[in-house]
Structure formats: C-alpha cells, structure tokens
C-alpha cells in the first residue's frame, strides 16, 4: 500500500468528482485545497507516476457511442477450465475475464461496436465450447457509488 499524506487523500477523493469544463478547471480545486495550480498539478502527476491513479481524464461510455457491453458467465467443468479459457480469450470481443467462486465459475465481459455483436460473439463461444453462455446485460445501473474513499 502506498503512503499517502493527508493532502493526497483529500486530493484523491476530490479528483473522483467530475471536473469542470472551464478554461482553468483545476483552479477552484487548488483554491479549495489551499494550493497553487502548479503544485496541485504536480501532485496529480505524482499520483499517476506512482500508480495510485491509473488515469485522469474523461470516462467514455462505449454503449452511449453506439456499441454494447454484456456480462456473461459459463459453468465450466473443472477439468476443461484451461481449454475453455483459451477458447474464450481468443475472442477479441472479450474485454476481461475472471475466474470466480461459483458453479458459474467463468465471468467475462463482451464489448462490441454494435449491439448485434454481443449475440454473435456469445453464440460462437457456445458453438466452440459446447457450453451455455449465460448473458447478463444490465437492465439498469445504479450510478452513485463509483468513488473509492481514500
């Protein structure tokens, strides 16, 4: 765990709020924390360089741009786990894939450029593995809790 001072913690919490689209968007933040803009920006760079932040910028939603995402799961027989992992991971539409503790033990996200792409990719994984691909597209998202409190 990285050592963060009080200021880093405050900054980290505030940086998870939506930044303004003003000419000098960091200025109100700097004033609030009692820093000048330059010091604030140096601190943010430091958090990025040390890996405390993975990124600072817009969060884009591919679905709102016309693409689609779908969470999927497979109940993989334990003796076929490595083979099925290879088949699933070979699909470029698979953005990430986790082994989890459940009868449904493989959970992956399909990300495609069009909504139709989800069904096509899931169907072909079913054909190649002979296993059911359960599909869990989001019905609704509850937005509020995205932040991590440092």
């Amino acid at each position, binding site marked *: 765990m990285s050592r963060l001072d009080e200021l880093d913690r405050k900054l980290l919490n505030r940086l998870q*709020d939506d930044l303004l689209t003003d000419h000098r968007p960091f200025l109100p933040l700097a004033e609030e924390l009692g820093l000048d803009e330059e010091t604030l*920006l140096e601190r943010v760079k430091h958090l990025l360089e040390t890996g405390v932040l993975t990124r600072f910028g817009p969060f884009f939603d591919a679905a709102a741009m016309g693409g689609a995402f779908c969470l999927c799961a497979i109940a993989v027989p334990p003796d076929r786990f490595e083979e099925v992992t290879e088949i699933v991971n070979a699909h470029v539409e698979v953005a990430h894939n*986790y082994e989890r503790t459940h009868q449904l033990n493989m959970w992956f996200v399909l990300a495609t450029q069009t909504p139709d792409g989800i069904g096509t990719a899931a169907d072909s994984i079913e054909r190649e593995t002979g296993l059911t691909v359960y599909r869990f597209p989001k019905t609704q998202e509850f937005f509020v809790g995205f932040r991590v409190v440092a």
Partner: protein
Amino acid sequence: MRMDPVDQEIVRALQAGLPLVPAPYAQIAGKLGLTEVELVERLNSMKSSGVIRRIAAAPNHYKLGMTSNGMTVWDIEDSRIAELGGVVGALPFVTHAYERPRALPIWPYNLFAMVHGSSDEEVEEKRAHIAGILGSACRAGDILYSKRILKKTGLRLRNKK
C-alpha cells in the same frame, strides 16, 4: 448520440487522459484545430448524452490497499429493485451496482453490487451491512470472489512501470 468525425477525434485525443496543464481544453483544442469554446461545447454535449460519464481520476484499488473484491449478488423483489438498488449503489464501499436479468434455475439473482475492501473479512462485513439494508425484500444472496484474472485487455489501462 451520433458521433461525427470531430467527436471521434476528440475521443481519440482524450483516451489516454487529460493533459495536466492549467488550461487543458485549450491545449487539446489547439492540437485538433478547434477553438476552446467549440471543444468545450462538444464535451458538454457528450456529457449530457452520457458518452462522457465524468472527467475524473481512476484510482488503483490495489495501491489503496483494497486487495479483496467480491461480487455480491442478491435476489430482490422486482417491485423494490429500483429503490433498493439506488440505496445499495449509494453506499461508499460499493463501486458498481446493476440490475441484471436472472437465469433460472442456476442464477436467481437480479442485483449485482461490487464491494472492495482490504481483506475478505472486511468484504464480508460490508456484505452483511448490505443484507441488513435489504431485509425481507431479499430472498437470497451470494458472493463471488475473483480467484484469478484470466484476461484484461479491453479497458484503457496504462502499462505497468
């Protein structure tokens, strides 16, 4: 939202992140041959249409000591899902919360809430806290810990240094 080629250029220019300079929008606008006002107008309309969720930091959970993550799942009465999902999603330790379809009989759960903590014990405590909030509207629940990352390429990740 219909993204025209200029919007797509903007997405491409900002995918890696916002420049950490006092006037970042002016700098990006300059690179794309736009005025700052035009860029900001386009960014604002992407925000209002949901193409941009927010402009903010993505923290690294592991670096913050959040080494345990569990996908908690719940079977909630359909008539209460909107209300209770909102309450669970607002908890400070829940990073994502979704309503998703059930797949009976193997999967009776319709609420998914991702919980992070510094240990499995802490995640269990948080899960118990959620169970308390859901009360009798919840018929069953489970937690799926991640055992192994099998693939992770799709999202905008920085190379590890």
